[in-house]
């Protein structure tokens, strides 16, 4: 049996980790940085795993906040791996990087690294290609709901499926999945000003809407900010991203998280699709985790900095 790292300095960010290693990392990070990081359990998954959110805060109550989630689709391993790197980056850069420090001096950051823990555990034990949750569907042999079609934003519309065997099965009703509903309750009870949901792959940065062609009222601002974010992202390794509304950038998708967030009044709602563009797909080699996280961080900082400087 290989001993687990006893502190986050020994944690290997350049390899993929199973769920228990991720949970241990979160606990270590909290223990090492009690004045900055805390862990909030916002709910339980269908299989009773905790839905952990790391809160990065320098104090205050009900501060404006930034929400970041990674890994709502369990097989997109580079997203959970990037989430771990972001968490460490926040604690190491706070007090050193002026932009991040300014954000944390006025705002909180909430980071949910494993948004779909049942699915993630299943990818390690049974099927690496599993995408959905693990809740059984009554009357069907097929298991799970696509947690990014389960939000109350055009729920049930085109770009989602009513077939429990489909990879994009929307579930029986909006927010039926505890993994989704826990975020809904949490976000609605906090002062969230930016909502960023991270997926892989295909190198895109998108904003609402996915369920309708109607442009959002903040289209120009979000489009300009997306352009700046992808430019900053590309400045590190030249990775090329496309950007735009979900429906224009990829396809119609109903019941998605950022459409819901935007309709709740969270203006800066974005979703990423991280590397790659068609060599490895969901099987991005571990050697690309850190470069992916590093470049994504630049774009995240651009969005967070803009959110700080443009209160609403």
């Amino acid at each position, binding site marked *: 049996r290989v001993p687990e790292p006893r502190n986050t300095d020994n944690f290997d960010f350049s390899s*993929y980790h199973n769920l228990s290693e991720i949970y241990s990392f979160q606990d270590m990070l909290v223990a090492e940085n009690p004045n900055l990081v805390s862990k909030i359990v916002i709910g339980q998954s269908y299989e009773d795993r905790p839905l952990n959110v790391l809160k990065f805060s320098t104090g205050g109550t009900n501060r404006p906040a930034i929400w970041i989630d990674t890994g709502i689709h369990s097989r997109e391993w580079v997203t959970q791996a990037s989430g771990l790197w972001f968490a460490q980056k926040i604690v190491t850069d706070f007090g050193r990087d002026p932009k991040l420090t300014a954000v944390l001096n006025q705002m909180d950051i909430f980071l949910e690294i494993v948004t779909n823990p049942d699915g993630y555990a299943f990818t390690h034990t049974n099927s690496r290609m599993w995408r959905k949750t693990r809740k059984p569907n009554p009357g069907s042999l097929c298991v799970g709901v696509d947690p990014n079609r389960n939000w109350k934003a055009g729920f049930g519309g085109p770009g989602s499926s009513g*077939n429990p065997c489909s*990879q994009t099965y929307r579930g029986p009703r909006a927010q039926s999945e505890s993994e989704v509903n826990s975020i809904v309750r949490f976000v609605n009870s906090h002062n969230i000003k930016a909502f960023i949901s991270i997926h892989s792959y*295909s190198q895109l940065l998108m904003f609402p809407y996915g369920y309708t062609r109607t442009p959002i009222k903040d289209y120009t601002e979000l489009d300009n900010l997306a352009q700046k974010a992808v430019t900053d992202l590309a400045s590190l390794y030249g990775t090329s991203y496309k950007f735009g509304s979900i429906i224009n950038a990829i*396809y119609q998708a109903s019941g998605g998280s950022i459409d819901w967030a935007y309709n709740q009044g969270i203006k800066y709602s974005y979703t990423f699709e991280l590397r790659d563009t068609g060599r490895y*797909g969901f099987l991005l080699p*571990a050697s690309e985790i850190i470069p992916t996280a590093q470049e994504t961080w630049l774009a995240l900082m651009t969005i967070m900095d803009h959110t700080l400087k443009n209160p609403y």
Partner: protein
Amino acid sequence: KETFNGHQVLRLVPKSDGHLSLIKDLHNMIEQELDIWREVSDVGFPVDIRVPVHQLKMVKRYLKAYDIQFSTMIKDLQVLLDEEQKAMESALA
């Protein structure tokens, strides 16, 4: 543990609206067998599909019959998965 020996990931490039419909038709025909990695969006935008080994011949024949351009993005998925597993184990060690 589910294995994916011989599964290929094909990259399709639709060149017309007709191709888009044909790819959707293919997916509808064998929805539970095909795993769409990158969904159908627009003409010129790639679509990535994981095809199980027992459906490969049929799918490739279908694509050729309708002149839908495709390439093999991943030749054998299990090979990549084995490499990934080995990398994780050696990182732990």
